[in-house]
Every structure is written in C-alpha cells, then in structure tokens.
C-alpha cells in the first residue's frame, strides 16, 4: 500500500463529503457544549479546500497539503481552524519531497500532526478534544504500520464515542465543567470523519 497524489485528493473529497453530510450533526454536538458553529466551520472549511485545490496542479502530496492547511486555517475559523491547519501543515512538512506515501510515512505524518495539535492547543490526551481521537489512531499505526483500514475507522469511532465520558478542560466546552460530561466532543467527531475518509482512501489505494 502507498498513497499517491490522487489518493490524497480522494481523502480530501471524502472528508468534505462527510463534513457536508454531517454538518447539522456537528452543529448539534457543538450546541450542547459550545457555540453551535463547528458544523458550519468544518463544512465551509472543507468546501473551500476542494474549491481551492481541485483545478490546481501539484507536484506532490506535500504541496497539495500545504494549500489544504492554509485554507483550513483561514476558512474554518474558531478553534478548529488553527488546529486542523497546524495538523495538515505538519503532515505536509513530514511528507516533503515524497511522491509516494508509505505506511511508515503515514505513521510519522499523523504523529507530527498530533504533536502540532497538542502544541497549538496547549492540550494533551484526556481533555475532551480532537486529540482524544488523534492519539489512539496514531497509537494504532505505531503498534502495527499495516493496520487494516476497517480498524482505523473503528478505532477512531470508538475514540470519538469515548469522549462522551470525559470532562472538558480545554476549549469552550471547559466552561461547562462537569456538565460537559455526557456529550461527544464536536472536534472529535470531525476528526473521526477525517480518519474514516483516510481509511477509505487507504483501502482504495
């Protein structure tokens, strides 16, 4: 298995589809413990990613992902903008000058993305943020680079659901303290969609 430019494009398009389909659901999640805009932010941001990149010629996945990062940063808004922007920028940097992305590159790229999110958000595992989805997915690749796509999808989904039990200590949800418990973290849901899309494009690669 290796990912080429068109597989990455596929990943982005699938991600965008999932953001559009689940726009209302993400809004609903953010309504409970935030400001109700996460679905709006993600749907707008990924739509812009597609609009911006679809007719461009890129030398490599890294070049494409750099544009993705800049677009997410400036179009998502809210906390998710700088966070996903940073993650994709780190991914782009990790894959610099590579035309074919090997399983090992995926592992290292996602690790760099996760580190970027942690740094940007000054957050760590267990604070009820998207980190709680990124972390177990990265762990999966570390345990077995050749992890099955279905396992990636399942792990991300379970991790998303597990954020329900956590108390938020970062981001807007943290203002709700104990009352944040019992709700899925919106950013963890959008991260699940991104990994679900990645799993599908790995499967098709």
């Amino acid at each position, binding site marked *: 298995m290796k990912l080429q430019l068109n597989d990455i494009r596929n990943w982005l398009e699938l991600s965008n589809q999932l953001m559009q389909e689940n726009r209302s659901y993400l809004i609903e999640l953010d309504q409970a413990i935030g*400001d109700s*805009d996460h679905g709006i*932010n993600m749907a707008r941001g990924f739509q812009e990613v597609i609009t911006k990149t679809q007719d461009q010629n890129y030398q490599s996945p890294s070049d494409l992902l750099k544009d993705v990062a800049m677009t997410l*940063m*400036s*179009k998502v*808004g*809210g*906390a998710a*903008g*700088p*966070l996903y*922007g*940073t993650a994709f920028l780190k991914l782009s940097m990790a894959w610099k000058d590579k035309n074919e992305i090997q399983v090992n590159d995926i592992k290292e790229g996602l690790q760099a993305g996760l580190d970027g999110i942690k740094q*940007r*958000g000054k957050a760590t595992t267990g604070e009820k943020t998207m980190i709680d989805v990124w972390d177990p997915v990265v762990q999966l690749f570390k345990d077995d680079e050749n992890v099955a796509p279905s396992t990636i999808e399942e792990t991300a989904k379970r991790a998303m659901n597990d954020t329900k039990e956590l108390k938020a200590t970062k*981001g*807007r949800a943290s203002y709700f303290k104990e009352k944040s418990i019992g709700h899925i973290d919106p950013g963890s849901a959008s991260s699940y969609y991104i990994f679900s899309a990645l799993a599908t494009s790995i499967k098709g690669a």
Partner: protein
Amino acid sequence: MGQVGIVLISHSVKIAEGTKELVQQVMKDVTVEVAGGTDEGEIGTSIDKILNAITKANKDDGVLLLYDIGSAKMNAEMAVEMTEVDDVELIEAPLVEGAYVAAVESGMGKEKHEIIEAVTQSFSKERD
C-alpha cells in the same frame, strides 16, 4: 508619540470596534487596528484579518496583540508565527481593560516591553 501599534482581536466586530473607539477617545495618536469577527463578519476570528491588522499596526516599534476568549489566542499565535512583521507579541490581559492601559502607555511613548509590563501588572493586582 505612540509608535507601538496595538491590534484588538475579538470574536465580535462590534467589540473590537467599540474598544478601538473607547481608547482612541483618550489616545488619538496611537495606532490601534481591529481584527474582529470572521471574514463574513460573524462571531469568530479570522487569521487573515489578524495578519492584515498586524501589518497596518506596524510603525516599526513593535506591535502588541490583545485578544478576547478561547480560540482568538490560537489564531493570534498562529499569526505571530506567520507574519512578516517582526517584534509582534501577545499580551495576556482582558481585551477592553487591557487595551485601555496599553493605549495610554503607548501614547506616553513607552517601549513595547514597558507596555507589556504595565498591562500585565494592572491585572495581576485586584481591580479597585
């Protein structure tokens, strides 16, 4: 006078503009630029607006950024890394109240590090 520029980053266009008016009433010559709301003018922050405001606020003696809640800080930090203006720094202080102190200090011709100290000091002690 007032060469250290000030950028007000808020989730709300109105908060940013209102704060600018409030401080400019007292300090007419200090450069104060706003980055309020999303690109669409809705509640949120925009990295592009922040970057523009930094460029406009730069009069070569440094730029100070004040922000309101949550993600405004992440976008501000991002902007500090991305901007071509050097000598840009974030202040940890309440937006409206901090901007007032910062503008008075800048108007008195203080340097960037002195302004940061004055603002930070104002909010470590109890408000009277």
